[in-house]
């Protein structure tokens, strides 16, 4: 048996004329918390539904724990799912909801009771065991759905934007909870979301999808610091995007011609002269009253200075574009809108991306 819980091999899925998945390939290791991230219609939900058995691929093969399950119906897969609306059965109590999957596995009554107690104590739901879904709160419902999906001990747990219905405060708390549940159970989590914050907080690994294809697959740090495509750079975090022509590239460093200036940054490959984009994270752009000593410097006029709580965001109009920079709140109150300022960033903070 391989160590890959999931192996999706060249899977294509079309809905009418729309290609939801285009020759998708991916492997997921046991115990990973993988998040599929992307805008709606990017194919992340289709991937999830194919793993759950609710959609059949048009071509390609799906393996779960080494077994070909492409044609296996959902009820025969060792995969469980937490639905976006939780899909708790309204006519059953929390206990009955959790028991549902256990009964169908053919477990005996005493084994079922033991398992229910184990899982509900773990998720701190024991006091609510005999309540109906409409008698508990949104966060509790979310945990009940998680309990129901974890109870049958699946090889893979699918989570379809399960935090979408929670309010912002609760969501932040549940994100941390989910991550620790995943760590302590050692289960493989397949998490789907369009919220990049959520993805960065929880995941061991993030797969960014766009238009039925994988844009980039890596750790949260990889994606944030070393985006491989313009889409990823723009989708994850806030960034400044500059448009220019590629200069020379050597040893992972490249130059970009921008507004008559040569900027240097990290670049992989490319032919000189081709149009490229460069991404610079807001917090890596330093604002200063005098010309700084960074690798790249531009001057401009401060248009806006916006208070963001723990930090301040500056909007600076330069000849080529309006750039954004952030700085911790304490040392940055001195700039007045209208004043001339300098912006600077280092070579390692700018990623040059081929179009």
């Amino acid at each position, binding site marked *: 048996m391989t160590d890959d819980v999931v192996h999706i091999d060249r899977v294509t899925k079309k809905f009418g004329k729309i290609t939801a998945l285009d020759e998708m390939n991916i492997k997921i290791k046991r115990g990973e918390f993988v998040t599929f991230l992307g805008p709606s219609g990017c194919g992340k939900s289709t991937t999830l539904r194919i793993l*759950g*058995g*609710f959609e059949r691929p048009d071509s390609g093969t799906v393996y779960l724990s080494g077994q070909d399950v492409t044609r296996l*119906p*959902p*009820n025969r897969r060792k*995969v*469980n*799912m937490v*639905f*976006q*609306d939780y*899909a*708790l*059965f*309204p*006519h059953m109590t929390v206990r009955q909801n959790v028991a*549902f*999957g256990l009964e*169908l*596995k053919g477990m005996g009554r005493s084994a079922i009771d033991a398992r229910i107690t184990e899982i509900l104590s773990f998720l701190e739901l024991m006091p609510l065991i005999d309540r109906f879904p409409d008698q508990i709160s949104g966060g509790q419902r979310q945990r009940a759905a998680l309990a*129901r*999906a974890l109870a*049958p001990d699946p090889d893979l747990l699918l989570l379809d934007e399960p935090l979408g219905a929670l309010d912002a405060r609760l969501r932040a708390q549940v994100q941390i909870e989910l991550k620790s549940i995943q760590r302590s159970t050692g289960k493989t989590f397949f998490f789907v979301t369009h919220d990049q914050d959520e993805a960065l907080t929880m995941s061991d690994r993030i797969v960014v999808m766009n238009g039925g294809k994988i844009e980039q697959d890596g750790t949260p740090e990889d994606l944030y610091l070393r985006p491989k495509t313009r889409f990823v750079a723009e989708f994850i975090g806030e960034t400044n995007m500059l448009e220019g022509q590629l200069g020379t590239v050597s040893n992972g460093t490249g130059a970009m011609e921008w507004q008559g200036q040569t900027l240097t940054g990290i670049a992989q490959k490319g032919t000189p002269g081709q149009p490229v984009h460069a991404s610079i994270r807001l917090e890596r752009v330093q604002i200063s009253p005098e010309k700084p000593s960074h690798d790249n410097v531009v001057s401009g006029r401060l248009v806006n200075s916006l208070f963001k709580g723990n930090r301040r965001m500056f909007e600076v109009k330069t000849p080529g574009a309006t750039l954004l920079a952030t700085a911790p709140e304490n040392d940055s109150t001195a700039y007045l809108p209208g004043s001339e300022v300098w912006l600077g960033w280092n070579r390692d903070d700018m990623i040059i991306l081929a179009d």
Partner: protein
Amino acid sequence: MTRHTRLFMSMAYWGFAIYLFLPITIMIAMSFKDSKFIGFPIRSWTTDWYGQAIANGEFVSATGYSLLVAVVSTAISMVMGTWLAVLLARKSFWGRGVVFALTMLPAVVPGIISAISFRIYIRLIELDPGMVAIIFGHAVHNVPFVALVVGARLGTMPRSHTEAAQDLGADPLIAFLRVTVPYLKPAMVGGAVFSLLLSFDDFVRSFFLGSYEPTLPVLLFSKLRSGMSPEINAISTLVLIVTAILGLWAERSMRRMNKG
């Protein structure tokens, strides 16, 4: 809205209510009149007609017969109506429009034509007029109503419920029985009562499909053709009360469900 139109509207409502209720009120009053002659004035009152109606074997056996027909035909309509509703809940399949139209067909065929077509059809399938034929006619006639009521409820059920059941190890049949049916229960109860009443009240199909043993509406019809009798008042009043209570209950439970 001016006061005059408002007044006119409320008069229309109460006038309509009187139009609906006056006849049955008179019928109820007549059932207590202590005279064989039906008509006003009523000089003295009695409950004897109820005793006579209940003692009359004809009425009792016709009622029993009607009930039996109603229960069996409803059971069939429930199964087929629900089955069709579940089929039609599939978003799209080839010929869905045709299946929907065919499902609703018995509801739009005028009564006499429906009765006649069944009369001819049972000859084709070599079924003699009688109980089985009436049950058949009623069952077919009630299917569209059950399908409509159940289908409306099914439309409000999130798809994720059945998917969750299958995800947890239920095949589609077990998922249907354990998750969909409980969800549909209020609609199925409402549809069943509705179907029972339609069958119990039905005259034209029972009349053309029956043999010598009459259902209650057929018996009342033949009694009326030969003249009124105080017993008819009594038995009609009893039926009115029982069916009205059942009907109101079903109507209420269905409206509740659609609101909630």
